[in-house]
């Protein structure tokens, strides 16, 4: 193993591990070869051809992303032949691309624009193809807008949808000049198997796939003196937002973000983490109840394993792909929707504001949350529970438009009610976080003791593997839960829908014996969500995860059931977990959907 090969790059000899591509070898040497279709999350395509390099002795150029280094290779990454070819390929892409950059949502963060600027493409000699084609814009989805005129056919979205997510909503159709990225029978994204996860948006190099933004709507609400605008922020936003504002990945900026939101004019800046803690109480109780029914009452109608339901991309996925297993889902709404339902009931009541005067905005690392807020069942407060969902990227746009110098902001604290949270809620943003938070609480309810892990860090459930398993043995439980004595609670975590798929297949086949599974639609969990800053890649996700766990360790409260505001909420309003009010406001039902 670890064989080395000797090659030379631009005349300088180097030793490279065998099996590395020319692109990787060059990167190690500090040489950037431009790419468009290449992405570290995805399989190699080699179809944009922007990364071509010259290999001595070969007339044709080789795609650096797809060509492994071989002994003795002499590689030129910037020869005249390479430059001329590369420049011409960029020109070709521009001829096919609707390069109306000033009117593009991705203006300023577009890989094609950057490349065109680097290569100083100042004229367009080739014939513009955009006016000759009747490219369509699909804006029917509440989450995603697809503009074919900006598509450069790199197929990153297709590989994302298939390889990363196993959804296959986006595919390639037709050939030659008519080749395009589309859906089943060219239906609207809204009408197909699309989970709205937004990974395609996050991986698109241009503006062909973008989130549907609600920036103007939110500004209008803020400007309306008759409206009380409440904003909630999801756990993963605080570790991503900084990247959009020029910081390095891995910075948690909760306090500054809260300060910025207050300056933007929101009437109350609250935390989705509050309802993440609430989710743990409801979902944890639901799990224990299911276990009791299954193990003590021998009730066959109880579905185990119980699957988490916080990720709306995952929810839509299971509704399409595994509708026979909807009973396995926890009936808990996601923290966003619990928050929405409470804002227009509990909060409105406590603050003495009419619910119809409240505009409820949420900041999410997610595009599927936009869709979730639109779901007809999400009106349990009597109004639309969440009015507008903005992604992390849209929040950054608000901050820039308002002219706020982020660095000069003094950190601020969330408002109350519904602003307090625990470390357990913060880690919701990372894969394994919901599981860890649930275990911290459930274990303590059952045994009266803290989880047996140093500093409450349940490390076995953390990490980046697509599917992880952990077993926790329950010993000496308190009297109420005595029946769980000696039970080994089997847990699994899956993130990225392709991994969710393989776990679900094992459940369908009856070969899994899990009790509780955390599913997250996006790789890395919410911190790698489709609404997070672009680019997102394995290294950046790692950095964001580190920031999340650091934030958890730094908080005074680390367990959901110790959140004082949650205790007060139950005392004043909900009365008990899974009680009647909870059932009405915090729980939901699911719909079987078609599989195309």
């Amino acid at each position, binding site marked *: 193993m670890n064989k080395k090969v000797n090659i030379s790059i631009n005349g300088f000899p180097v030793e490279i591990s065998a099996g590395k591509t020319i692109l990787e070898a060059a990167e190690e040497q500090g040489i950037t070869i431009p790419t468009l279709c290449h992405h570290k999350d995805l399989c*190699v395509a080699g*179809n944009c*051809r922007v990364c*071509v390099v010259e290999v001595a002795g070969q007339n*044709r150029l080789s795609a650096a992303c797809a060509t492994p280094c071989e002994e003795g290779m002499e590689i030129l990454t910037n020869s005249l032949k390479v430059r001329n070819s590369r420049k*011409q*390929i960029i020109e*070709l892409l521009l001829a096919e691309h609707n390069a109306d950059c000033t009117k593009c949502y991705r203006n300023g963060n577009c890989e094609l624009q950057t490349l065109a600027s680097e290569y100083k493409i100042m004229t367009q000699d080739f014939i513009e*193809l955009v006016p000759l084609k009747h490219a369509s814009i699909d804006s029917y989805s509440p989450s995603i807008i697809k503009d074919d005129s900006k598509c450069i056919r790199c197929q990153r979205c297709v590989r994302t949808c298939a390889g990363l997510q196993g959804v296959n909503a986006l595919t390639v159709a037709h050939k030659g000049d008519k080749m395009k990225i589309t859906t089943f029978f060219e239906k609207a994204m809204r009408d197909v198997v699309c989970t709205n996860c937004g990974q395609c948006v996050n991986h698109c190099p241009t503006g062909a796939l973008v989130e549907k933004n609600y920036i103007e709507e939110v500004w209008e609400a803020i400007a309306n003196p008759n409206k009380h605008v409440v904003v909630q922020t999801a756990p993963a936003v605080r570790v991503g937002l900084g990247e959009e504002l020029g910081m390095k990945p891995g910075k948690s900026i909760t306090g500054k973000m809260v300060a910025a939101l207050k300056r933007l004019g929101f009437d109350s800046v609250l935390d989705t983490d509050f309802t993440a803690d609430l989710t743990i109480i409801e979902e944890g109780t639901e799990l224990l109840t299911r276990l009791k029914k299954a193990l003590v009452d021998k009730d066959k109608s109880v579905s185990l394993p119980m699957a988490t339901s916080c990720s709306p991309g995952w929810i839509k996925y299971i509704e399409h792909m595994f509708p026979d297993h909807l009973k396995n889902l926890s009936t808990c709404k996601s923290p966003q929707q619990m928050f929405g339902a409470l804002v227009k009931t509990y909060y409105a009541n406590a603050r003495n504001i009419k619910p119809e005067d409240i505009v409820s905005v949420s900041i999410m690392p997610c595009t599927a949350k936009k869709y979730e807020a639109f779901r007809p069942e999400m009106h349990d407060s009597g109004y639309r529970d969440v009015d507008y969902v903005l992604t992390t990227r849209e929040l950054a746009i608000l901050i820039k438009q308002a002219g706020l110098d982020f660095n000069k902001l003094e950190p601020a604290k969330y408002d109350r009610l519904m602003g307090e949270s625990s470390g357990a809620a913060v880690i919701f943003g990372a894969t394994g976080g919901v599981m860890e938070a649930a275990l911290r609480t459930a274990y303590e309810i059952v045994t009266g003791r803290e989880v047996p892990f140093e500093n409450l860090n349940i490390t076995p459930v953390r990490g980046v593997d697509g599917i992880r398993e952990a077993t926790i043995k329950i010993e000496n439980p308190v009297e109420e839960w005595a029946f769980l004595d000696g039970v080994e609670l089997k847990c699994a975590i899956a993130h990225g829908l392709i991994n969710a798929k393989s776990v679900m297949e094992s459940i369908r086949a009856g070969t899994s014996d899990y009790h509780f599974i955390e599913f997250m639609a996006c790789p890395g969990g919410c911190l790698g969500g489709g609404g997070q800053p672009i680019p997102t890649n394995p290294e950046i996700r790692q950095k964001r995860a580190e920031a999340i766990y650091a934030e958890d360790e730094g908080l005074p409260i680390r367990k959901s059931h110790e959140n004082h505001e949650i205790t007060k909420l139950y005392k004043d309003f909900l009365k008990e977990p899974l009680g009647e009010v909870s059932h009405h406001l915090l729980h939901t039902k699911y719909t079987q959907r078609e599989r195309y």
Partner: protein
Amino acid sequence: MATSNQLKRVDFIFRNENDWEKILSSTLQRKPQDLINELISSELKGRGGAGFPTGLKWKLTAESKEKEKYVICNADEGEPGTFKDREILSRVPYKVLTAMAICGYITGAKRGFIYLRGEYKFLLPELNKVIDEFDYYCQETNLDFKISIFMGSGAYICGEETALMESMEGKRGEPRNKPPFPTQAGFMGKPTVINNVETLVHTFTIFKYGAKKFYDLGVQYSRGTKLFSVSGDTPKPGIYELELGMSLQDFVYEFGDGDTKAVQVGGASGFLVPRKKFKDAAIGFKGKLTGISLPTGGSMMLFNSSRSMFNVLDNYLEFFREESCGQCTPCRVGCQQLLLGIKAVKRGEKPASYLDKLLRLNETMQYTAKCGLGQSVANSFSSIVENFREEMIY
């Protein structure tokens, strides 16, 4: 100077001998290594157009330690102007099947597929009958080799070997990155020999008559015979088996109508040779002694002086614009630009010098396209534009 032999007509391929069972059983008595050596010594090169040494291809696949391997007969004959494989499959199909079985024996493959061009669906009933007979023979003689037909769906690109395999795997027919080559990871990621129909029939000839007989035909670097599909302005269109290495001049003497202006050698992805270069051009693989050597899948289209070379090129480019799979930039956008570009020059919307920009684009396509399709559009484009520039403009 190219050789100025008279054309040598040969008759191996369609010779109907009905002795395939004998050839198969006697060949299977011999050691695989000997057979590979024989094939290598014949210097047979792939007849689909690319000219990869067949013996080497079989050898590489045979050397692989993988248990599962495949033999594929590429019958997706889509190059404009070729129709020889259709003829082989309707007249001497058992030669193809025998050759596939021998290849399976040598390489260790137990499964063979014929990837049949979508438009050749009418060949199916007869072909299936022959395959059933062949199957019966295999069962009787305990030969563990099974052949089935996979129908193409009409995409030109699926004649490209890796796109063909993608298509067989149920995916979209798009060429793969190479390496790995099919001999390492082909159909279903397993080592695969993929040969053109005609190539397989030549191996039959070689195993029957010996490598020497084959090697003695043709010229250096281009041994043996080749089927030519002759069409266009000719009094005798059809299929002819000729020795390789002939000069184009001799070919035109034989097949021209006395007014031949140019010959397109190798179909739309081949080269157009104008009258003044007939003498210097020889039909065979690269490495020939002097002059221009023109590799070909066998398509020979003759044009007389009544033909507009602009129309010819326009027609090819329409074809490529539609038949590019669309995945790589140089081919997808390049083909559209070439087509729109020559039209714009013709209409006077672009200056004549725009042709030079297109020729540079052509070069980029040749250097950077992912597969043979995009790379070889340059062949016809540059040979037509450079030789008939005035016809492009006026």
